[in-house]
C-alpha cells in the first residue's frame, strides 16, 4: 500500500492538459492504482502517456482541418503580394510618418486585418468543400474561432519576427518581392517564404479548430476543446 500522495505536478497536468474522454475515471483509476503500491515513476509514465494519447486523438479528429490549413497557407505569400501590387501597402500600410508607438500599432492592425481576411476566406472555402464532400459543417463558435485564431496568429507572427531578427532576410528583399509573379510566389518553398506561411498556417488551423465541428452540436464533447 502507498499512503502518500501522487506527484502533484503530474496530477495537475492530467487534470488540465488531457483534452478528450473520461478524465475523471482515468485520474481516479491512476490514484487508486498508486495507492495500491504503484511507484511515482509509474504514475508519471501513465500521465504522460494519457496526455500524449489524448492529444494524438485530438489531432487525428481534426486531421482534415489541419491538412486544409497547411494547403491554404501555401497561398498566403500570394495574398500578401496583393496589397503590394494594388499599392494599398504604401497607402495604408506605410506608417513611417507616424510617431512610435502608433506606427507600430497601425502596422500591427493592418497586418492583422490582412491576415484575418485571408484566414476567414479560407474558412469559407473549407466550409464549401466540406458541404460538397461530407455534408454540412457544424459551427461551434464564430467568436472563439475568431479570438483564438487571432491570438494564435499573433503569437506565431511574433515567433516569426523573432526568427527574422536573429536570421535577417536579404537586404534586397523588397525589390525581389515586388518583382515576383503570383504563381511564382505560390510555387516557392524557400526557407523565408515557408517561414512567412507559418503564422497563416497556425492562424487558419486554430480558427478552424475552434470554429468547425464535423459532429452535430449536441454530439460535440465539451472536452474536445484543447483544455
Amino acid at each position, binding site marked *: 500500500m502507498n499512503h502518500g500522495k501522487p506527484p502533484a505536478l503530474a496530477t495537475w497536468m492530467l487534470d488540465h492538459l488531457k483534452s478528450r474522454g473520461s478524465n475523471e475515471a482515468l*485520474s481516479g*483509476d491512476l490514484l487508486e492504482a498508486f495507492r495500491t503500491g504503484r511507484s511515482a515513476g509509474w504514475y508519471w509514465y501513465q500521465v504522460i502517456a494519457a496526455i500524449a*494519447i489524448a492529444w494524438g486523438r485530438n489531432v487525428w479528429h481534426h486531421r482534415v482541418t489541419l*491538412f486544409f490549413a497547411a494547403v491554404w497557407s501555401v497561398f498566403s505569400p500570394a495574398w500578401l503580394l496583393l496589397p503590394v501590387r494594388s499599392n494599398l501597402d504604401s497607402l495604408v500600410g506605410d506608417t513611417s510618418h507616424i510617431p512610435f508607438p502608433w506606427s507600430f500599432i497601425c502596422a500591427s492592425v493592418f497586418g492583422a486585418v490582412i491576415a484575418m481576411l485571408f484566414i476567414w476566406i479560407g474558412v469559407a472555402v473549407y466550409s464549401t468543400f466540406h458541404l*460538397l464532400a461530407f455534408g454540412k459543417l457544424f459551427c461551434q463558435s464564430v467568436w472563439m474561432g475568431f479570438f483564438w485564431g487571432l491570438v494564435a496568429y499573433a503569437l506565431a507572427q511574433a515567433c516569426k519576427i523573432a526568427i527574422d531578427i536573429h536570421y535577417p532576410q536579404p537586404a534586397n528583399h523588397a525589390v525581389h518581392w515586388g518583382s515576383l509573379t503570383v504563381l511564382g510566389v505560390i510555387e516557392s518553398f524557400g526557407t523565408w517564404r515557408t517561414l512567412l506561411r507559418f503564422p497563416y498556417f497556425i492562424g487558419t488551423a486554430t480558427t478552424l479548430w475552434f470554429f468547425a465541428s464535423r459532429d452535430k452540436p449536441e454530439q460535440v464533447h465539451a472536452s474536445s476543446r484543447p483544455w
Partner: protein
Amino acid sequence: MINATSRFTNGLRKWYFFASVEVMADRSYLGEFELMLLLVVIRLGEEAYGVPVAHELEQYRGRIVSVGSVYAALERLEAKGLITSSLGDPTPERGGKAKRYFRITKAGLRQVHDTRRVLTRLWRTIPDFKLEFHLEER
C-alpha cells in the same frame, strides 16, 4: 439541375481524398488490442473498470499497459456499439472520483465469436512445421 448537382457531389465524394480516410475509420474488424480488451471485459464481468482491466492486460501481455490507451480503445469500442459504460459511485480511495464500468453488448459478443471463428479457421490451415520454420528463421 438537381441531378447534375448530385452527380457532381457524388463524383467529388469518389475522388475526394478524405472520403477514403473516412471509410477507413469506420472499419468493422477488431484490432489485436481491441480483441484483448473485449475478452478481458467479458472475463471481469461486473468488475470491469480501468484498474482491473489494465492489470489483467499487464498480466497476460507481460508488460506495462498505459491506462490512457485502455480508455482510448474502450471509447473506440463503445463508439462502435461493442461495449457500453456507466459511472459508479465516487469512493474516497479514488479521491472522490467515480469508476467507469464497461460491459460487453450483444454486438460485441457476436464480434468476438466471429473473430474467434475466423482466427481458428486460419490457424487450422497452417501446419505446425511452417510455424516452427519461421520461428527458427527469426
